[in-house]
């Protein structure tokens, strides 16, 4: 009888425990849903979320256009949003860059809900984060109040803007945290941000601005500038706005100079991390925000093999419509053969050495041509044919793009060629980094 009782009590305890666990589980689920109200709402009403957000916040978002003074034609179209009662609008630097480069030829306007154009003046820019603050003369009735946000991966976000000049549009997507290989943080947003939506806000369902639309890598991979960078710029704009649009280019110059000095930090100069290719030890990941990858080419119909190792970051800077730069990237390539004689191998090697695997695009108006110096250099008993090429930004004094290449010599059936590309750097830094890069190469017998 006691056993049956004990058994019954045990079953009861188990049942209690079981129900307790269910209750706990249920409440846990519930909490999750509460903290992401968008998803909770989604459980019951999927379609109307976007409608609600649109209804509440669309008035804060405006179309930005850059217009050519002489013809009145629209040169660039983007988006922006009000953030203060005094008419400050946030947008991207790349939306208004034409006016920064040619202040006499262009003017910037925002288009209000009725379709009327109103002039704005550019009062602060941040080239590195691709942000700009412009100010309208009107006082908006509605605007976003910016504040730091702390959200988790997977949160539902809404991006607003004017894609392809169609009309104000809302796009739903998901927050996916920060890009791993970037020093200057960008948020990964899984949603289709289209051209024209640049400068628009991406917000939570409650209207908290998480970031500013900046670019897209296609197929629902898009990027946002985090709101922290916007807050910093806004407070600086309120304290010290720029009043003369001709001074904006000088701000571009000084920001790029500061950026490259901080980027080319001691970490990079030390080049501690290395990779082994054949008998060579070569510089690899220069900092945590560098991403490196390798590949090998072993096609049978080719009479030689190549093994590549290359590193870069996801940081890049938009300087103007025809000029993008990204500070630092490099590639090592080991070439070997067991089928070509030495003369044929060196014909191949010369051709491969001539290649530069990535070119920094710039227009004739913005950059000079490259000038190169080529010599044979001895480093730790290995001889290298080295070339150092540099070109200057015409309107941004003190900023250069540099390409450094080296090819090892002395072996009849193998060679290592390496290319280092530096953009938007000072001349001193270009020389310093290239020299350090070359001297970081070593060779084992």
């Amino acid at each position, binding site marked *: 009888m006691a056993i049956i009782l004990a058994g019954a009590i045990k079953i009861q305890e188990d049942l209690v425990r079981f129900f307790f666990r269910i209750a706990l589980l249920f409440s846990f689920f519930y909490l999750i849903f509460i903290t992401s109200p968008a998803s909770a709402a989604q459980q019951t009403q999927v379609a109307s979320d976007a409608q609600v957000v649109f209804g509440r916040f669309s008035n804060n978002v405006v179309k930005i256009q850059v217009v050519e003074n002489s013809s009145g034609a629209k040169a660039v179209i983007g988006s922006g949003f009000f953030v203060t009662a005094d008419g400050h609008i946030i947008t991207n630097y790349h939306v208004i860059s034409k006016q920064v480069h040619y202040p006499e030829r262009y003017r910037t306007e925002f288009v209000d809900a009725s379709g009327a154009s109103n002039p704005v003046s550019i009062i602060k820019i941040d080239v590195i984060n691709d942000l700009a603050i412009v100010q309208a003369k009107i006082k908006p009735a509605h605007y976003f109040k910016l504040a730091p946000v702390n959200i988790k991966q997977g949160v539902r976000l809404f991006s607003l803007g004017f894609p392809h000049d169609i009309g104000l549009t809302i796009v739903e997507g998901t927050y996916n945290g920060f890009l791993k290989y970037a020093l200057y943080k960008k948020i990964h947003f899984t949603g289709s941000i289209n051209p024209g939506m640049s400068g628009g806000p991406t917000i939570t369902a409650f209207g908290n601005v998480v970031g500013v639309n900046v670019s897209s890598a296609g197929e629902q991979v898009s990027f946002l500038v985090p709101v922290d960078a916007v807050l910093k710029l806004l407070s600086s704009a309120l304290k010290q706005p720029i009043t003369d649009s001709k001074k904006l280019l000088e701000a571009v110059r000084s920001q790029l100079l500061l950026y490259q000095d901080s980027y080319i930090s001691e970490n990079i100069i030390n080049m501690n991390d290395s990779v082994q290719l054949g008998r060579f030890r070569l510089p690899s990941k220069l900092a945590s925000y560098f991403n490196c990858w390798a590949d090998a080419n072993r096609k049978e119909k*080719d009479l030689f093999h190549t093994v590549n190792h290359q590193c870069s970051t996801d940081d890049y800077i938009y300087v103007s419509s025809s000029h993008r730069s990204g500070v630092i990237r490099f590639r090592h390539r080991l070439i070997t053969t067991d089928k070509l004689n030495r003369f044929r191998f060196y014909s191949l090697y010369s051709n491969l*050495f001539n290649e530069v695997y990535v070119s920094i695009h710039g227009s004739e108006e913005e950059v000079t041509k490259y000038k190169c110096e080529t*010599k*044979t250099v*001895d480093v730790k008993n290995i*001889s290298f*044919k080295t*070339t150092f090429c540099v070109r200057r930004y*015409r309107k941004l004094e003190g900023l250069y793009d540099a390409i450094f290449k080296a090819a090892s010599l002395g072996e009849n059936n193998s060679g290592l060629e390496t290319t280092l590309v530096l953009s938007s750097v000072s001349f001193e830094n270009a020389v310093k980094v290239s020299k350090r890069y070359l001297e970081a190469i070593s060779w084992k017998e």
Partner: protein
Amino acid sequence: MERVVYVEILDKRGGVKERIRLDAFPATIGRAYTNSVIIDDKHVCPEHLRINLDEKGNFIVEDLGSVNGLYQVNPYKRVSLVEITPNLQFSIGSTVLQFRRPEDKVAPAEIVKPDRTYLFPLLKHQGAALGIFFLSSLIFTLIIYLNSYAKISSILFIGDLLAVFFLFAVWAGVWSMVNRLLTHTFRFASHLSIASLGTVSILSFINITGYYSFIFSPELSLDIIMTAGLIILGSLFLFCHLSIIPAASQIRRLVYSTIVSAGIMGIFTFIVYIEGAGSKFSNEIKFNSTLKPLKNYWLITSSSDSFFENVRHLKEKVDASAKED
């Protein structure tokens, strides 16, 4: 004894355009068809001059009252009646005349200078020329092979070679036609061997300058050496073709060959300049990437420190070009 005088009508360079024999006197010179010597010059009168013998038996020339007159050339003066002496030139209208008599002296004949080059007998002999063609074709094939690095598919490779030899044949064919027109022989083998020998020398020269540029990493001197070398080889190439024929004198051949060769190089250099270091803008770097399989003791090297010291002059260069336009 018959008295004869020759009237020579001279061209602009003093050469004889026409020579008329006069043996009946008095003889007249003018534009009309009644004259002994008819001159086709609108500034000459229908009846302009009379040539006659005087009492002493000397020839005299007399102006018949022409509109534009009779001038003796040296010293230049207008005359109405003058005795003909050796080497005396006259001018009527726009025509220059000279009178010669049988007793005037002429220089003895000059000796023909033989060709002093030894290559040509070899090239002129058709058998030897063919031999040279085959040998240089082998070297040509070797050079092409050593400069390639793709898998050689034998059919394509032979096809490419045959295409090149076809081009040689066409080039030699054109020269042979010219040869035929001037000397009634084709000498095809000679021209063919010159074509292949010339191409091989130019390719070898380019390869050798590749070694020069690899060892010394030169800047301006490479361009000068390349251009000069190619002009010299090109003109030698054309000179050989011309000498087989042979066209014109040796010196003239050399001059023409050099001018044509320099002209072609000039156009080529101009095009390369525009594409390369010249005005055309590009986002690509242009540097001498030639690498050669030489052991380290051949190389002229510098230290890393001195290389990076030297690159500082590039800063001035790009800063200067940023300031232009």
